[in-house]
């Protein structure tokens, strides 16, 4: 099933690899920041409710 990439194997796999790395990093950063701010906001809301 794996296609024969011939002499372009390195370039093609390099391209796919680089793209996956960049996009994965982007997704991870977005998800982590989202989680972090959610936590901080919940804590601040709780503190406000307690006052």
């Amino acid at each position, binding site marked *: 099933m794996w296609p024969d990439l011939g002499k372009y194997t390195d*370039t093609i796999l390099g*391209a796919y690899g680089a793209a996956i790395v960049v*996009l994965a*990093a982007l997704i991870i950063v*977005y998800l982590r920041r989202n989680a972090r*701010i*959610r936590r901080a906001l919940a804590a601040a809301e709780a503190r406000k409710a307690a006052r």
Partner: protein
Amino acid sequence: MSFWEFANPARFMRLSGRVLPWVAGATILCLSAGLVWGFFLTPDAAQFGSTVKIIYIHVPSAFLAINIYFMMFVTSLIWLIRRHHVSALAAKAAAPIGAAMTLVALITGALWGQPMWGTWWVWDPRLTSFLIMFVFYLGYLALWAAIEEPDKAADLTSILALVGSLFAVLSRYAVNFWNQGLHQGASLSMDREENVSDIFWQPLVLSIIGFFALFILLLLIGTRTEIRSRRLRALQMQEAV
């Protein structure tokens, strides 16, 4: 219900929250289907050999890089005219996605050109324009990061986005003039009209949809984060008093 209803942050949060799982599902589905189909199930092309497989990443990312910049232009304009915070925050959330897409387009573009031109980088008009756009994105992000006051940051980055868009378009023409005639015909851009064969066209469309869905997904997540961040800042300022 007009489109401007979404400008209300609370309503935006509710709606985006409901829509989010569907967008995530669409992203995973279309992206994996498009890329798997393109990579494993398509033949080599006459002109490019097996390197044609790079288009399933290069074309969608390039397409999005440009469209995200245009989206930032529009949302910046909306902020400056109608002062809808969701608009300004959407532009802020979109920028890193656009920068990443530009980077992917640059890397895949350079790698695609390498077998044909023998070097890792060429000053092809298309690649050069993308490099300039990447620097524009970086400047925009740097300005957001440098300014403390959120509304002032939104104002200044919006003005930058407007002027930047104008000069991005100007640069495109200037770069064509600068490097004209060098690689015409062998340009990396495979215009969708030139793509005659359905064999490549269909997985490509699927990939484009997948990338677009990814953009919407991250945009929604990012904007929601920014809205929450703004609320957090307001609470922190209250606490400090």
